[in-house]
């Protein structure tokens, strides 16, 4: 009976073309859309020179000349340290360009330079801090030069070469280096988490297939359910065999999604392939058990059960970072219990743990949580189905 029902359930589910099509097509379409949206992400986190304008000082002073020279150095496209893309213009034109969003800000050079901006973004912050650094450096050089001049005069030199001393002081200040070593290693891409939430969402959506498979054994859902409810086959046999068939279809869909995202979109799942496969199977199982559980809930109509699965999966995906990876981190940090009960988050976190090599303990914790989640829901569902009679049909 098990094999008989299993094979026929496969046939019936595969005959529901719309269901099968969307099971396969939906994750592929979404993965492609994500890929298109995020393909520039790593590139865009590298630094782009900031567009600014400079209004040259009307009165040429030593300080203003030092300042403009420093800005020119920072704007040199041949230098690795280029920070700005600068052009020189009048105050009125610069004001208009700022209003028209053609520049991030403009500087009016003088003895006391001023920075003009319209908003507080990262570009404006970099502009301000670069200008401040020039002023600070100028101050330090002047202090150092003044001290050196004082030393020379005390040593008996009444006319020290101010220009030379200042130049030496400038060289010393600007060439002074500090040893800072970045030990981060390879930077992992947080955007991968988006794809992991997508996979997790697809795993949970397998609940709808599970529901389709099991509802044909529910007398209060359809006539076929009535018929199978009065056969001599145990409910658990029918439900398990139907569930297994729907799980197989979902795994086939997930295999296609994996191959596509790995080979075509080059998504990185880390190096622990066996664990990735294991997690996918268990995640899909969790979705299936969720669907079976919802299917057996009494006093809820079939359309409402569909909506329940969809809505809860959407909420779970959101809390796992699908619409912004920061949300997962925020929930994990501030409301950890929420994501400990959220199967989408468990699956996402499992993939994350494998990708970042954060440690086997975390991965296995997620895996076992999923198994416990599946087990509890399945037991409740079977227990409810076994002796199920209805108040009305």
């Amino acid at each position, binding site marked *: *009976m098990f094999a008989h029902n299993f094979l*026929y359930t496969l046939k019936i589910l595969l005959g529901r073309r719309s269901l099968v099509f969307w099971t396969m097509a939906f994750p592929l379409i979404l993965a492609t859309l994500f890929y298109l949206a995020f393909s520039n992400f790593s590139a865009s986190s590298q630094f782009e020179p900031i567009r600014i304008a400079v209004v040259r000082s009307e009165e040429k002073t030593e300080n203003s000349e030092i300042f403009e020279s420093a800005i020119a150095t920072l704007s040199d496209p041949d230098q690795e340290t280029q920070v700005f893309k600068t052009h020189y213009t009048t105050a009125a034109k610069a004001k208009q360009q700022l209003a028209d969003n053609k520049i991030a800000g403009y500087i009016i050079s003088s003895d006391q330079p001023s920075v003009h901006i319209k908003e507080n973004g990262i570009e404006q912050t970099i502009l301000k801090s670069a200008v401040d650094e020039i002023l600070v450096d100028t101050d330090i050089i002047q202090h150092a030069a003044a001290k050196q001049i004082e030393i020379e005069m005390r040593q008996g030199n009444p006319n020290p070469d101010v220009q030379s001393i200042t130049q030496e002081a400038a060289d010393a200040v600007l060439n002074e280096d500090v040893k800072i070593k970045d030990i981060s290693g390879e930077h992992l891409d947080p955007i991968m988490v988006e794809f992991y939430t997508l996979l997790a969402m697809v795993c949970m959506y397998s609940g709808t297939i599970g529901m389709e498979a099991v509802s044909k054994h529910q007398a209060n859902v359809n006539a076929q359910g009535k018929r199978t409810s009065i056969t001599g086959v145990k*409910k658990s046999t029918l439900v398990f065999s139907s569930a297994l068939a729907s799980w197989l279809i979902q795994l086939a869909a997930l295999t296609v999604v994996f191959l596509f995202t790995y080979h075509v979109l080059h998504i990185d799942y880390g190096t622990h392939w066996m664990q990735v496969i294991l997690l996918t199977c268990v995640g899909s199982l969790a979705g299936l058990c969720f669907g079976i559980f919802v299917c057996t809930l009494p006093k809820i109509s079939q359309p409402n059960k569909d909506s329940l699965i969809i809505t809860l999966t959407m909420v779970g995906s959101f809390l796992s970072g699908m619409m912004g990876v920061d949300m997962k981190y925020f929930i994990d940090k501030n409301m950890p219990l929420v994501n400990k009960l959220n199967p989408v988050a468990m699956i996402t976190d499992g993939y994350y743990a494998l990708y970042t090599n954060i440690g086997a303990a975390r991965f296995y914790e997620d895996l076992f949580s999923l198994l416990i989640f599946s087990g509890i829901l399945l037991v409740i569902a079977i227990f409810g189905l076994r002796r199920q009679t209805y108040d009305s049909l």
Partner: protein
Amino acid sequence: MNNVIEVSHLTKSYRHTIKAVDDLSFDVHEGEILGLLGPNGSGKSTTINCILSLLSYEGGEIKIFHETMRPDSYDLKAKIGVVFQDVAVFEELTVQENINYFCGLYVNDRTLRRQYVEEAIQFAELENYRKFYPKQLSGGLLRRLNIACGIAHKPKLLFADEATASVDPQSRSQILNSIDQLRKQGTTVIYTTHYMEEVEQICDRVLIIDKGKKLAAGTIDELKEHSGIHEKISIELRENDERHVEELRQLPDVLEIRRSGAALILSFQEGSNHLADLMDYLQSNHLHYDKIYSERPTLNDVFLELTGKELRD
């Protein structure tokens, strides 16, 4: 007499207020076709669903093959077949696959199953439609498929809940013959229908229920006797006058008079020569008529008498 089904004091309410089945007791004898009759909302389907343990009930006991029926009575369920009012087949499977699937839930042995499926296809006269999908079948063929799925495993007990609803006369005749054939093969059948002619054609006994209560049970002849109507005479009078109706009502043995279109239908209790007496009366009172005929009461008359409404209301 061996009872296949024993229902004692069955009570079922919906939402604790609407009593769908009210202290209903009846037995079904082995090898008979029991007709279960009642107007819409009388509790027929509810009774069947309670017997099948699909519905919970507050009171009473149900035994099938002398064992208490429960949702997990799988041994009992293996002997039961059901033809539901709603067509219960899968759109994604062909005719043959549907029958094979449902038969396979009862019969494990592949060779035996193949034989049973073939017999069911022939029984339902679906040989030319094996590879068809349900969407491609007419209403009548779909009903035959529905029946084939319900009887393929050769159940000892069959529930046929309005098996011929929305079916053409040819298919209906075929279905009735098939059910009669099943009875000859030893299957006990509980047959629900709205068509009185079907009950009269194939049922051995009839159980009439209304508002969840048993009104009458017995063979068709017993019920007709029970109704008290012995003879019905229809007259189409030329003059349509209420005074005549009142006068006719005063005749001896008249139980009731009602109109049916242009005709007056007089129901007589047991007695003799009603037709002759009536004709004499009409002649002597110069009451002219176009048609007059006498007939035995039908089951519909019995039903009407007991429930106060036509079965098709």
